[in-house]
């Protein structure tokens, strides 16, 4: 089958987003390897990975959140012990059940892939869209005048979680005590056994300082926006009072470094795409 521009567009934002994530991940991977553009030459253990995987339905999904653990073609590598990639399976199940990952902030990109499928449809191997499955009834707690029962028509929660993850990943890439690495001014990742010099910048003076700035300032901005967003939705009668309290509580937990990020992603994804009779959209489509 010839893939034309039109068919590419028909394929939906899913593909466009996936390509964008892949491109960004590829550039990061190249940058972290001294601008080496050939992935096969990237140094294992010192690379920011990216990966592509094709599942049984023929959907190409991109895992763009590799870490300092090495190049991965099937999923993100670990950032920190039990970090973003450390609990690939645990997060996936946990997020669908509205629970955070097991205390370490892990993420399963399979969940993100399913999220895309949920929103933009599922295609077979011949790029034919598979008909949508009827969704379940939204949770009763969401039945309010201004949103007709849907939890939220936008992706603010998921986007905030993704932004939080981006901030944490960036901070960990710059300086990671767990992985014993730091990123110099020359965009090369080094072991923490090396102190640095004028060209690379100091391990503590440059890398740790920058990492703290990214995490604290970025996290504070995202958290503040979360508070505002929840307040605004409540003010407009788009969420209930109970939901407001729950959301603000969840947002507060999100301030905890690394774990909070995992919590935020699990919370946002589970609420939007998980099955639950008491909270969120109660979407059990992926469990049929």
């Amino acid at each position, binding site marked *: 089958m010839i893939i034309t521009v039109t068919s590419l567009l028909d394929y939906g934002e899913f593909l466009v987003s996936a390509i964008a994530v892949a491109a960004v991940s590829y550039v990061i991977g190249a940058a972290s390897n001294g601008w080496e553009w050939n992935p096969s030459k990237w140094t294992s253990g010192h690379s920011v990975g990216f990966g592509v995987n094709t599942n049984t339905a023929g959907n190409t999904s991109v895992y763009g959140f590799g870490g300092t653990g090495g190049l991965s073609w099937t999923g993100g590598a670990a950032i920190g012990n039990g970090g973003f990639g450390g609990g690939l399976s645990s997060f996936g199940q946990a997020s669908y059940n509205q629970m955070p990952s097991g205390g370490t902030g892990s993420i399963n990109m399979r969940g993100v892939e399913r999220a895309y499928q949920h929103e933009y449809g599922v295609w077979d191997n011949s790029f034919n869209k598979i008909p949508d499955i009827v969704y379940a009834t939204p949770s009763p707690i969401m039945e309010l*005048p*201004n949103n007709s029962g849907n939890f939220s028509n936008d992706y603010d929660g998921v986007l905030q979680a993704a932004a939080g993850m981006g901030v944490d990943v960036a901070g960990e890439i710059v300086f990671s005590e767990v992985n014993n690495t730091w990123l110099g001014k020359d965009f090369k990742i080094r072991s923490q056994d090396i102190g640095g010099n004028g060209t690379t910048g100091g391990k503590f003076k440059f890398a740790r*300082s920058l990492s*703290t*700035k990214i995490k*604290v*300032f970025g996290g*504070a*901005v995202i958290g*503040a*926006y979360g508070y*505002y967003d929840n*307040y*605004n939705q*409540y*003010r*407009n*009668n788009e969420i209930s009072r109970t939901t407001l309290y729950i959301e603000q509580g969840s947002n507060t937990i999100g301030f905890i470094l690394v774990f909070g990020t995992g919590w935020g992603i699990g919370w946002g994804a589970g609420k939007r795409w998980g099955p639950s009779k008491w909270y969120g959209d109660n979407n059990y489509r992926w469990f049929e």
Partner: protein
Amino acid sequence: MILLYKYMFCRVYYFYVNAFKETDIPHYFATAVVSVLFMTNVVFVMDSFFFFFKCEWLDFGSYYKFLALIVLFAALFFIQKKQRYQHILNDHEQLSKRARNTLLVISVFYVLVSGFSICWIGEEIRQFHVENPKM
């Protein structure tokens, strides 16, 4: 009021330095926190005005985030220009212990009142939306 903002700026500044052991951007962090507090008052005043006089403008609430960004950047520019934060910190050092204690009590009271006021007006606007749902 300015003295109160300066005091809160300093408290957040030193909190950041002590908590994160980082001295490059504590003034930015403190500015951002004070900006949020300031925006809380702005939102309360604007929401009150819209609610009591111009209910059809209540949807403007969706644009507060942009207003907050403008305020934040303006505050950052102000605080950075001529290194004003250094002057604020120096002034803070000149304060007597009694003055600091008084400002501490007032600032806690101010934060509580700001939080309460924003919650109260939010409830009122929500009630309006309940009674007048969007079609």
